[in-house]
Each structure stands twice: as C-alpha cells, then as structure tokens.
C-alpha cells in the first residue's frame, strides 16, 4: 500500500515536470501533501499517538493546506504571471526527470543494506533531484520556493524511512519544513514582492564579482 | 730602483725612436730622437689656456695622471732586481693605479663640455675596460705557471723549458705589445697624427689641455711606453746576471719602439667600429695562453 502511494508520488513528479501553470504546481504540492499524509499514517502506525498526530497534522495542515494557500495568495497579491517560464521545453524536462528516477533506481540497486527500504530511498532521492532540477530550470523566484518545497517533501520521505526507530528525526524534518517555509515565504517573500514587481531571478543577480 | 731609473731613461728617447723609424720608413731623414722631449720641455715653459666651462678637475687631472703612471712604474721589476713596490699581487695595484689615472683623464675630458672630447673619453673608457682582462689573464697564467703572485717573483722565476713555453712567451709578448698600443692609443687602434673624429681616442681627450699640463700628459705617454717595454723585456731577462739585463732591457725597448714605428708606417688604422672586437681578441689569445699553461703543467688530461 505504501509503495503504491510512493509510486503515485513519483508520478506527481513526472506531472510536475510538464506542468505549465503555477496553479498546477500548487495543486501538485497539495496532492503530495495528502500522499505524504497517507504514507505517514501507514508507516508510523506504531509510534506514540501524540507524536503521530502531530506529524499527521503537519502533513495535512501545513504541507497540504497552509503552504499552498499561502503560495496562492502570494501569486495573486504580487500579480505574478501564471506561467512558470522554464528555460527548457517541457518535453526535455520530462525526459530528464524520467532519467533521474531511472538512475536513482539503478543507484539504489547497487546498495546492499537490509536496513534500507528501497522504495522510500528511490522516491526520496528522485524527489530531491527533481526539486533541484525545478529550482535550476525555472525562471521565477516562486518556482524556486516550490522546488525547495519539493526537496523538503523528499527529505520528509527519507526521514519516514527511518522514522519508526527515531520519530525524533521526523520531528526534526518537520521543524526544517516549517522553519524554511516560514522563513522563505513568511518573513520576506512578500517583501520581494513589494520591492520587485515581477520577481524574476535575473533581477537578483547584482551581487557578484 | 734599477728599473725605475732605466724606464725613466728609456722614456726620454722612446717616442723619438718611433718617430725616427716612421720618417725613415717614409723616406725622410726626420728629426733627432730627443725632439719629442724638446717639445715637451717647450710645453713646460709655456703658459696655459683654460676653458671657461672647466672646473678644478680639469687642472688637477694631468698631475694625477702623471703621478699614477709614475707610481705604477715603481712596481716594475727588472730581472733579479725587484721594483720599489713589490709584494704579493702587486700587479693588481699596478693595473688599478693606471685605471686611476685613466679615470681622471676621462672626467677631465668631459669637464670641458666639448662635443669632441666626450667621444674620446667614451672610447678610452670602453677600450681600457676591454683590454684589462687580457692583462689580468696573462698575469694570472704566469702566476699559475710560476706559482708566484708578484711581478718580481713571477719574472725572476720565469724560465722557458719546452717549446710550448716559448710559444707562450711569444704570445704574451704580442699581447703586451698590443696592450701598450691600445693604452697609448697608437696605431692600429688610433692614429695620433690626425684629429679626424673617426679615429680620435686619446688625442681627442686632450684637445683643451695646454702648457704644462699638456707636457705632463705627453711625457706620461712616453713613460707608459717605456713601462710596457720594461715589462716585455722582463719576459726575456728572467734571472740573468745584471751584466746581461741592462743591454737586453735597452735592446727590447729599442726593438719595441722600432716595431711601433714600423706598425705605424705600414698599417692602416682600424675602423673605430672594429676596434672592440680586435681588442677583445687579445682576451681570447690570453685565454689561449692560460690553457697553454694548464697544458704545460699537465693539469688537464
């Protein structure tokens, strides 16, 4: 069951690679949030309840609702154009992300460790790389944020893999999530919106030598 | 002491002989061999003209020049008899004393601010720079040959055994004759008769000197000639008894003078541009002498 969810998660990545509109990205993030909720629920069934509840809340409330809504608001508020302007055509990105997934599978296959749940590992890694890929191939700053959120999801999955023994780590992951999102989005993303009317990375390339 | 007296004596008639040879070679009778000395004494009696540009340097230089050469002569031995100055490495002092005199002649030439004398000065300084290595290398080779490091010891212990040593002696004589010619700027380096700027070296430097100073300079030249003659004669004297030395000395002096005269009458002056290379040949030749000595001592096998 977990595996099915995870595979669906991987598919969201593929979808993300070909998505055009920012709104789609947000929807995908929401969906990923719910998937993670499911995974958590299935995986961490036997850790103490309060902690579990906390984690579940985080996945649903934070990942699936708060952040996407906030993103939505930001887009509206700053009047960002709806299209994620990628440097590369979607077709290429699709191929690349597929490759990423394949490669991670091959790589993880070379790892011989009984303690490691392969599915988690593969999905987590490919999510990580996808996030990176999105960050580095999209032009808008907000897409950077989204990419970062994807990376966070990947890390979260990885933490779930070891979550049974050390729920503490999962909490850490959550902290990271909240911290980063709050910092990046909350503290000043809207500031960027105030200062730069069309937040394009090229406008943040003045500090260089 | 002996050498000093002899050299001074020789210096009296040396140039005379040269001139006489030249006039005979060119088919004239020529003046007596003491004519140059007479001229010099005439100069001594004359008053002098100084350029308004010059400073005291110009006036002291000739005396310094004279004194330096005189001092250098003191270092020359004659066969068994050492010079007044004789110690290890005295020929270094000898060379540097001459350089001292040259220094003053050069700056006095430049003191006049003339457009000619600088030329002479420049050439003089360059030539003396080029000629010094030859002198030192020859002396060094003899020092190596004899194992001694002073004029007197070198010459008194110098004796020719094998053929090669004669060759070396000959080469050394040649080198020293040439050094003498350059130091006194005679043919083939420089033609004392003309004042063509193409050929002027020493003559150009003293254009503005007159009277007593000029006399000093001229006689210094004579003394220099005699001095080199003395050195050359030492190659042949070795440690012979005194009865032979003095005749040999004068023979060599006169021979030397005649040679100079002949060279001057039958050779053309070099082009100025070719002089450096010619002068440097002396260094190369003296290096040959050096290696010859090494050969003689069977140092390199």
């Amino acid at each position, binding site marked *: 069951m977990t595996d099915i969810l995870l595979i669906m998660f991987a598919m969201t990545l593929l979808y993300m690679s070909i998505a055009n509109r920012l709104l789609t990205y947000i929807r995908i993030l929401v969906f990923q949030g719910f998937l993670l909720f499911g995974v958590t629920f299935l995986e961490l069934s036997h850790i103490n309840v309060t902690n579990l509840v906390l984690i579940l809340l985080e996945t649903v409330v934070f990942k699936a609702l708060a952040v996407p809504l906030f993103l939505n608001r930001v887009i509206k508020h700053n009047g960002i154009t709806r299209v994620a302007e990628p440097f590369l055509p979607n077709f290429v990105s699709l191929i690349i992300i597929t490759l990423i997934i394949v490669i991670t599978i091959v790589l993880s296959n070379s790892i011989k460790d009984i303690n490691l749940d392969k599915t988690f590992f593969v999905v987590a890694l490919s999510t990580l790389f996808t996030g990176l890929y999105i960050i580095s191939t999209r032009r808008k700053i907000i897409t950077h944020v989204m990419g970062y959120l994807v990376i966070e999801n990947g890390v979260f999955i990885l933490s779930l893999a070891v979550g049974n023994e050390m729920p503490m780590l999962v909490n850490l992951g959550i902290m990271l999530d909240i911290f980063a999102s709050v910092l990046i989005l909350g503290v000043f993303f809207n500031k960027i919106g105030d200062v730069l009317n069309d937040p394009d990375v090229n406008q943040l390339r003045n500090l260089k030598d | 002491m002996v050498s000093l007296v002899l050299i001074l004596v020789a210096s009296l008639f040396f140039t005379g002989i040269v001139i006489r040879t030249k006039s005979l070679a060119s088919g004239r009778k020529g003046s007596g061999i003491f004519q140059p000395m007479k001229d010099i004494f005439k100069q001594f009696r004359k008053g002098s003209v100084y350029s308004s540009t010059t400073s005291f340097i110009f006036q002291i230089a000739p005396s310094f020049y004279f004194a330096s050469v005189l001092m250098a002569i003191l270092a020359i031995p004659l066969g068994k008899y050492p010079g007044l100055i004789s110690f290890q490495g005295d020929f270094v002092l000898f060379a540097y004393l001459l350089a001292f005199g040259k220094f003053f002649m050069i700056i006095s030439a430049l003191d006049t601010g*003339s*457009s000619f004398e600088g030329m002479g000065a*420049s050439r003089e300084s360059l030539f003396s720079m080029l000629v010094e*290595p030859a002198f030192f290398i020859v002396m060094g080779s003899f020092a190596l040959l004899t194992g001694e490091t002073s004029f007197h010891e070198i010459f008194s212990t110098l004796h020719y055994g094998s053929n090669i040593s004669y060759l070396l002696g000959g080469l050394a004589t040649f080198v020293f004759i040439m050094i003498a010619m350059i130091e006194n700027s005679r043919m083939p380096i420089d033609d004392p008769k003309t004042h063509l700027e193409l050929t002027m070296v020493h003559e150009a430097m003293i254009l503005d000197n007159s009277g007593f100073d000029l006399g000093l300079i001229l006689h210094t030249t004579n003394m220099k000639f005699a001095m080199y003659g003395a050195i050359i004669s030492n190659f042949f004297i070795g440690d012979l008894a005194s009865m032979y030395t003095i005749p040999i000395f004068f023979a060599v002096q006169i021979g030397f003078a005649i040679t100079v005269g002949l060279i001057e009458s039958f050779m053309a002056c070099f082009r100025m541009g070719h002089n450096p290379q010619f002068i440097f040949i002396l260094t190369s030749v003296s290096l040959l002498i050096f290696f010859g000595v090494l050969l003689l001592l069977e140092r390199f096998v």
Partner: protein
Amino acid sequence: MKTLIELFNLTAIATIVALPFLKVKGKGIVTLIAICLQVALVSIISIKVFSGTPIDYSYLGSYITGAIPVRVDYLSSWFILTISFTFLTGAVYGLHYMKRYIDQSANISLHASAYILTFTSLINLCIVQNGLVFLVIWEIMALSSFIIIIFEHYKKETLKAGINFLIQSHVSILFLTLAFMWVKIKTGTFDFSGITTYTSTEPALIGVGLFILFFLGFAIKAGFVPFHTWLPLAHPAAPAHISGVMSGVIIKIGIFGILRVLLLLKTNFVPIGYFILILSVITGVYGVMLAIIQHNLKKLLAYHSIENIGIIGIGIGLGCLGLGYNNQLLIVLGFSGALLHTLNHSLFKSLLFYSSGNVYQLTHTLDIESLGGLIKKMPKTAIFFLIGSLAICGLPPFNGFISEFLIYLGLFKSLSSVDFSLTVLMMFAILGLVLIGGLALICFTKAFSIVFLGESRHISMDKVENEKPASTLSFYAIVMLIMAIGVVPMLFLKVLALPVGQFAANISIDTAFEYSEIASTASMVGIYSAVFILLVVFVFLIRKMVTKNRPVSIANTWGCGYNGSSKKMQYTASSFIRTYRKLASSFLDIDKHKKEAKGIFPKVVHQETHPYDKIERWLIDKPIYNLRQLLSRFTFLQNGNVQSYILYGFIFIALVILVPEIIEKIKFLINFLNQL
C-alpha cells in the same frame, strides 16, 4: 650586557611611543638622539665582544617559541658596528633631508618610528638565535623598511615599488620559513644550534639542500641575480637617506644571514662554494652591465649595489671553497675580503646616495641626461661624490681597493691548485671581477662627469640654489673612514681576524699564521696608497710652483672653429655609453624610440631609450601575467546566480560520490586490458 641589550630595545620602544606627541621640529632631533643612544649602547656591546667576551644568554620563551638564546659573537658584532655607523650617518643626513617635508607631521613621525624600528630589528637579527623569533624580527624589519621606503606614498610609482618590495621580501621570508620549519621538524627546536646538530648527523646532500633553501631566502634580501628585481625599483622610490641606509646595510642583512648559516652548517662546502661563486660573478657582471645604461641616478646606484653584492658573494664563495678544501689562505682571503667589502660598500654607497640626495633636493630631478655642471653649484657634494665613485670603482688609495685586492689575491692564490675545474673557475672569477672593475669605471666616469661636469643640459642653472653646509655634515665622517681603511687597513684587519677566525675554527683549523701574512701584505698596500697620495700631492705642488707665474687665459672650449654655445652639443650619458650599448645589446633589453633627421632643414629630432631588465621581464612579469590569466578564467564562480550556487553543492557531492567509482571502473578496465 643583557641589560644593555634590553635598554637598547626599550629606548626604541619609548621613542616610538613618544614620537606622535612631539612637535614636528622635535621629532627629528629626538629620533637622532635616540639613534645616537642606541648606537652608543650597541657599540659598547660589540667592543666588549671584540675584546674577547662573546655574549651568550637565553630567555625562557613560551610554549610556542621555546627558549630564545641571544648570542653576540664576532660576526654579529662586525655587522652591528657596520649597521650602526650607517644608520647614524643616515639619521644625521635624514635630519637635513627631511626639512623640506616639515609640513607632513604625521607622516614624518611614522617615518621616524619606522626608521628606529628598522635599526632595532636589524641589530636584533644579528644577535637572536631562535628561528621563530628570527622570522618575526625579520618581517618586522621588512615591514618597517617598507614604511620608510614609501615615505612619499602619494606618488603612484613609489607605492608600487613599495608593494613590490613587500611582496618580494615576503617571498624571501617564505623560503626562510620553510628552512626553519625543516630544521624544527627534524630536531624539534628553533634554536640555531639545531641546524648544526641536524646537518652534522645527516649526509652532506641534506646540508647543501638546507643551505640552498636558506640562501634563496637571504639572496632575495641581498639582491643576488636573479632575485634582485625589487632593488632598482625600491631605491629610487625611497628618500635619499633611506636609499643610502637600505643599500648600505639593509640588504647586507642578507649577507649576514648567509654567513651565519655557513657558520652553523656542518656539511660539504665545496658545492656551496662553487654555487655561490658562479652566482656571484653573474650577479656582479649583470648588475654593473645594467647600471651603465640607467638614466636615473639612484637607479644606477641601485644596480651598483647588486654589483657589489656580487663582489661580496665572490669573497664568500672563495671562503667556502677554502672551508671545503681546508685551505687556510682561501678562508682568510675570502671571508676577510667579503666582510671588509661589506663595510666598504656600506660606506661609499651611502655616501653616493646621500650626495645624489643633495642633487635631487637642489635640482628636483634624478634624470642624469638633464643635469650637468653642478660642480659649480655644489662643489662639496661633487667632491664627495667623486671620492665615492673612485672608492666604488675599487681604485687606490681608497677602501674599495683593499677589499677587492684581498679577493683578487685569493683568486690568484687558488689558481695554482691541483683541481682543474677549480683553476678554470678561478680564472672565470678573475675575468668577471676585472670586467666588473672596467665597467664600473665606465659607469662612474659617466655618472660623475655628466652630472657634475660640463654645462647643464636641460635645467637652467640659475634656478638651482647653492648647497647648504648642513647637507654634507655626515659626509666627512664617512670619508674619514673610507680613507682610513684605504691607508691603514691593518687596523680593521686586526678586528676582522676574529670573525674570520670563527669560520676557520668551525672546521677546527687555525689560520693565525696565514692571517698575519695577509695582514702584512694589506698593510703594505696601505702604505703604498699613502705614498701614492703623497706622490700625487707632490706632483701637483710642483705643477703649482712651476705654473705660478705663467700667463693663464680663459677662453671657450675648443669648438673646431665653431664658437657658439655648445651646450646642446655636449656628450650626453647615452651617447657616452653608445658603443658599449651596441656591444652589449644582446644582454640588455632597451626599448628605443628614434626620429631620424630628414631633408635639408630637418625638424626637431629626438631619441629616447628606456632600459628595462631582461631577467625581470622573463622571471617576474611573464609568470605573474600568466598566473593572473589563469586565475581570471575562474571568475565565473561568483556569478550572482543562486541556481548555480546550489548546483555547486550538488556537483561537489556528486563528484565525491562518482569519481572514485569511475576511477574504480577505469582501473578495472586497465587490468582487464592488461590481461588480454
């Protein structure tokens, strides 16, 4: 003794602290007084040492430094005295020289304190024998001398030269650091005695290698070719008294270092001797060759410092060969020649620089080509410069001759050694020394007569005011010493016996006999110099007597019929050396612009030559240029793009993971192919 040394350092610190709070007039005086006091102190110390009680005590030091031994031996004292004298004259002259900068109060106090600091650190370098502390003091010396060099820091080229100096002295300290580090690692101590213990146990090759490392470090400071390139830049940039002091003694600390290391090493000295001798001959000849073509008076003198370092080096090389072959005579002649020439050079070179300073202050230019006829405006300076020139050319009866004579004698003596290669090397060295002498003659006849004699070439004479008597105050002292060494060298040689004896004692042989022999020879030279002076005076007096009542008339210089002003037709510096320049052109690097005269009535024609240093071009400029090119290839890194910043991280991780894998595969492939 210990208290004296501490007092010496305290004086420096106190003065430096006090200086900023003084009136601008007071600063100079206070500095001078402080220097005098310090000089007095160290002179007492070194005289005590020479009277036979070497100082040797040790501070406890700290966890890092370890014990800090302070040893004042004969060698140190010799250098201490040399340094002190030059710094004293420098201070006296500087007091006058600085008058025209009276308005730059803060700058002057910085300068003065740096001057004192330099002096103090130099003295301490001579006595401290702990590697780490030595390095620290060494760099303090370098930095403070950097400060005194860039006094006129508002000039662009001054600062440029200063930075060049700073970098090169840093390179030198890098070499020293490596050397001391080596010893420290092997012996676990910074004490200089560690060098001895280490090299005495190791094979000779190690010792030579260690020496080379030390030598590189010290050679940069001393200005051996090809490490000399900072010197000709720094000297013209600095004020005259600083140039004098720098060329006189600061570069000599490099010589001191080399000698100190030679004292400490226990190894085969023959290769070292060959190395130093050959390098020194090259240094000497190259230095003077470039000196001749310079148009800037101070730059010319700077290149002559390089030449003289070469002469000193020849002496040291001889000494090393003596040590290597156990030849007492060589040891004596080589080291005494080198040490004496160190003193001599510090004397006449400072004299020359100070007088060039006077020239600069009155004419505001150092360009030889535009000068001339200054002897009428500044006769005293001219005479002093003349004496300096004669001395530096090594002409009798001045001090330069004595030291060069000793070295010559050494070379001639060792000609007749059984070793063929040694004989040839000696002949090579003689040739070099002779060339140096001859070229120096050209160079200084040019320098002196173009600057002081004839008519002024460009600047108008009436603008030049007459020299002030204060400006030549310190010169008398220097000239006294110059003459003293020239005429009564035995006094100095008596003192020199002790440091030279150290070197001999180091290989446990006694040179007393040879030394006395040499001393007597040298004293004879001195006597003859005296005779020569008398003779010169005598001849001149006779001339005076004879020409007393002869008619004397003043006229124009003979112009071959042309009686107009011949100012512009005088020989210039570059025309004076033209023939030489043509001969040596293949060794030199002169960029020459020339406009030929055309037509019947030619327009104004001009010719200018800019001498440059070939070694500098190929050894410094090109590599630095290439290095900077290489570095500038990587400027894309900080491109201001967050995406690439993140990529760096991932790339780093990816490479670290993948590269070993790939290497594994390649290895496997190679093995596979090998098995085929």
